[in-house]
């Protein structure tokens, strides 16, 4: 018989390394034409870090993002930003880039104040590629003019920024401390079918809600969630490196299966924005939280369907079959003690709006 179940998987995730310094640094240079270059050693492995950093700098300088270029990471050209791990680059390097951009913006505002004969740079606002005196839209000067003026006067518009999350190290005895600069939260609901005769688990749907603080690039954020859910499905249901006496036996994609187009469920990413006071424009981090929730949600969904706790990953057909047998299932039929659980679930599914 095929049984359907629904399960919740939740997690929180501290952004950045645990209770230790993990700084990032960046340079931002605004050129004579008002375009900008960003140097930051934050590695983009496909997750989109470079695009996110460009958007942060473009926002701080109020220039279109296509006028901001981000250098590839290179120890001779980009300053140290630490490694791309711990879901930290949007938060930590995003802040470093923001600080660098804000420093350049301050230089430009001061220069603009001179050009506009304005006594107090605080009255100036940077908007749409122009600096203007608040309340006097006519009194404005373009970024291009500001940058050229700086150049002519022998000043270059180069800013630097360094950011390190504010943490308190864990106490070695009690493990108490303030180990992360901010926390991301997430909850997933997975819906699965379990074939109780074969043990096969099919993940039908994962609804994945993530607090990202602020979605710098919503489409890219969705992509992180979708990819993490897929990886979580593989972890929960199919992947295992088989090792025998220290020898890896699963050395090819034939022996080590990862999810294909056919194995990934319908994924519904949901972005929640609860800004981090310390994040760049409120952003937290998102790389890792998705893969934390999906496996747990699937495990609880399999229990919901069958009434049997799965204590051993992955939920391969073999492992699930053996667990069901151990719990008293025979020929796919639940034992008497689990009939009520299975029937309750069937009622719930019929009454479900989801």
């Amino acid at each position, binding site marked *: 018989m095929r049984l359907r179940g629904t399960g919740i998987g939740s997690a929180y995730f501290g952004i950045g390394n645990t209770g230790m310094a993990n700084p990032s640094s960046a340079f931002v240079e605004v050129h004579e034409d008002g375009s900008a270059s960003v140097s930051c050693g934050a590695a983009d492995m496909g997750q989109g870090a470079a695009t996110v950093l460009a958007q942060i700098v473009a926002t701080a300088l109020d220039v279109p993002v296509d006028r901001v270029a981000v250098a590839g990471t290179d120890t001779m050209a980009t300053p140290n930003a630490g490694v791309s791990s711990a879901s930290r680059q949007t938060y930590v390097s995003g802040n470093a880039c923001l600080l660098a951009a804000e420093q350049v913006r301050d230089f430009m505002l001061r220069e603009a104040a001179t050009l506009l004969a304005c006594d107090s740079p605080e009255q100036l606002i940077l908007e749409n590629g122009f600096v203007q005196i608040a309340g006097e839209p006519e009194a404005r000067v373009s970024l291009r003019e500001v940058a050229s003026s700086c150049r002519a006067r022998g000043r270059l518009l180069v800013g630097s920024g360094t950011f390190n999350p504010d943490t308190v190290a864990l106490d070695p005895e009690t493990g108490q401390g303030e180990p992360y600069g901010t926390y991301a939260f997430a909850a997933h609901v997975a819906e699965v079918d379990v074939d109780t005769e074969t043990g096969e688990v099919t993940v039908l749907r994962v609804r994945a809600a993530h607090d990202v603080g602020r979605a710098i690039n919503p489409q890219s954020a*969705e992509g992180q969630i979708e990819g993490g859910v897929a990886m979580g499905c593989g972890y929960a249901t199919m992947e295992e490196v088989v090792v025998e006496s220290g020898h890896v036996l699963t050395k090819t994609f034939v022996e080590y299966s990862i999810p294909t187009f056919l194995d990934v469920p319908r994924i519904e990413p949901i972005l929640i924005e609860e800004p981090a006071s310390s994040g760049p424009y409120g952003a937290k981090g998102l790389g890792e939280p998705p893969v934390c929730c999906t496996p747990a949600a699937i495990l609880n969904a399999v229990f919901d369907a069958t009434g049997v706790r799965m204590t051993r990953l992955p939920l391969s057909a073999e492992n699930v079959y053996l667990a069901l047998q151990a719990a008293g299932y025979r020929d796919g039929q639940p034992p008497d003690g689990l009939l009520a659980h299975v029937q309750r679930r069937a009622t719930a599914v019929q009454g479900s709006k989801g």
Partner: protein
Amino acid sequence: MTGLVGPGPRVDDLTAGITLAFILNGKPCSVAVEPGAVLLDVLRNDLGLTGTKRGCGEGECGACTVLVDGRVVNSCLYPAAKVAGCEVLTVEGLGSATALHPLQEAFLAQGAVQCGFCTPGMLLAAKALLDENSEPTEEQIRSAMSGNLCRCTGYTKIVAAVQAAAAVMRRGGLAAREPDSDTDGERARYIASGHVGASVLRADGPAKVMGAAKFADDLHREGMLHAKVLRSPHPHALILAIDCSAAIELPGVEAIVTAADIPGRNSFGIIVKDQPFLATDKVRYVGEAVAAVAARTTAIAERARHLIQVHYEPLPAVFDPREAMGAEAPQLFEEGNVRAHRHIERGDVDAAFAAAEIIVEETFHTQLVEHAYIEPEAGIAVPDANGVSLFVVSQGVHYQRSELAAMLDWPASRVRVVQTTVGGAFGGKIDLNVHPFITLLAVKTGRPVKLVYTREESMTVSTKRHPFEIHVRLGANAEGRFLAAEARVIGDTGAYSSYGPAVLTRAATHALGPYYMPNARVDTFAVHTNNPIAGAMRGFGVPQMAAAHEQMVDMVAEQAGLTPLEVRLRNGLEPDLAVTLTGHEISSELSYLETLGAATEGFDFGDRR
């Protein structure tokens, strides 16, 4: 077959090499090929078309997909001789920089490109499908493209891109980006300018959909040598002697390096420097690097590494972390097998358990997992006037540089590490992989040296996700409010530390989930065994812990007669109960209950009373 003139392949040609004539991306092409060459090598090496990728070399991942007479083939297995007279289409022929193919446009617009390594193959598989079926259903797309693996996207946006491109192609028009329907002035301006909150297209997208992005294996330097690594066949053994004399005599071999060639520090590790670049007196896992060879061709390097004689004395090995914690177990290091222990103690755990009306207890086991990025580890090291430059896979060039400079005993400024476009990493390219071997060989020979792992090598020696044994006890009152918890976690970190101690620390701080837990005791251990090294992998110990704590939470719900949703609403961190397991008060940025509400919307968890 098209009517191209040219000698068809004959059996006797295959031993002597042939000149192959075919239509490549719409233009006639003639190329001399080695006997037995596969199409992928001819495209990449002989014709310089590196847009087609090698992910596995066994026809399983689809990164090498090209079209031959309109049909999908895995070019890594496809004999080059078979394309004589055929039309071959690669990603380079799909569109041009000024006129992208609708599929390329749609992949960009839909966000279907992340690392981009699978993208060329995906595009061609999609083209073959749309040429046959102009209006495929989602099921048909998923089925037709199921031979192409992606580890980044979860496939959702790729399916959407194929559907969007199909719609454009049915209209016979070029792809036009749809104007944003949002009419709010301020928001529209932000979208136009690509500021924070706008889904701007990724800057590296166009190069990736055109096959122009350069991954490490796509790089070539004049006169470069090719490297191979000799690795330990034993999980635990002493090295008595290494004899390279036969290997170095092999014509075409330019250099061999062993630990004796390392001028500086022969150890690395981001937390504990316990892993040698090349083994000295002892190997601790199967696949540990012992020597590396640079030769004129990969084939010569491969033959040479088998000519290196290593005399081992096998030692007793330990594969079970629980056993490894015992005093009797074979010890991998003088300091013992327990590399790290993290303890968290909060409140009065024993008293709280004594007061608990519900106590649930369970032990969970999670498995060893591979990152399985589609791009294998690769890089090239180039000697230059400053010292040496690496163009290589990376998740952080500065860390890698510091280790390499220490290895060479050079100032850090003389070692340059440049990250190439990386085809997925997920924590698996954060350590050193090819880096020390190509660096040592390039410095020794004065020539560029390239090394690309085979898929088998990658899966054997890359770091992996820790398997955990997790024992948890959770106590609650009759209303299902959590009172106390206890967790003990043993992580098998394998032969060397890598990120293991940090993974087990994060496992501790995240041991019990986003719930208020006034009394808790957590102990996590990173334990060495002679198994493959476990290190950083996306989630960093938290997926394992969540698999346990989320089931424990449901077990309490079951006993308290609550739904899984209700028990979380009662215990989830919220402004009034905003203290984490480590005593961190985080009331201002708390959103667990919002995410829970959004995820569960529309689901009925029934009445459990």
